């Protein structure tokens, strides 16, 4: 059963890549920087699981791997911070959009 783990991890890498590509597309479409950062974050997570797939499950406890994961989540935190820093506290419009 433990032979399935690299397979699962590999599939996860693919999912992360697809997610990152979607976020990249959203960024290109809307110019919203948060999407670019989420794309980077999921790219990093993909890298994390790729490294894990190529080594062994207990490598997750090793610095190289968890540093990548840390980076991924730090990017997310940064994205959230940025989103809230430059914001104008706007109230919802009384009428809808086009």
């Amino acid at each position, binding site marked *: 059963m433990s032979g399935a783990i690299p397979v699962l991890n590999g599939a996860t890498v693919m999912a992360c890549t697809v997610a990152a590509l979607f976020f990249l597309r959203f960024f290109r479409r809307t110019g919203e920087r948060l999407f670019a950062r989420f794309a980077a974050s999921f790219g990093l997570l993909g890298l994390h699981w790729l490294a894990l797939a190529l080594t062994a499950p207990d490598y997750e406890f090793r610095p190289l791997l968890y540093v990548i994961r840390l980076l991924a989540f730090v990017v997310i935190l940064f994205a959230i911070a940025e989103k809230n820093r430059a*914001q*104008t506290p706007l109230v919802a419009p009384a009428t809808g959009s086009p």
Partner: protein
Amino acid sequence: MGQEDIPEAVRALLAERVASISELETLLLLYRTAPAEWDAQRVASELRIERAGAEQQLAALAARELLALRQEQDAGEHYSYAPASEDLDRAVGELASAYEKMRVSVVQMLYSKPTDGVRHFAEAFRLRKGPSNG
């Protein structure tokens, strides 16, 4: 594409308080001539649009706290630029300069409002906010 250069405040303004190019032009007209008062007829002739359209836009912008309305008894409705907050004022200023420097990008941004939840995803990460614009 240039859309990445549009400041966050302007982006929010376009997403939440400006519905069309006409509204944008109307807002900027009143912004540039502040604190002058305009009525629908004058706006219509200045921007060369229909009077009814001008009325609608002025009313909409006022409802979104960008303009103030002063009702005169038999002399109709007069609008002037009066944003509800300093932040809003600053955002409109940035919008004016963005419109001048990156007109195409601003217009694209105005008309590319995704309704499929993508924008809501980004908005969900705003920590403090008022009621969502749905």
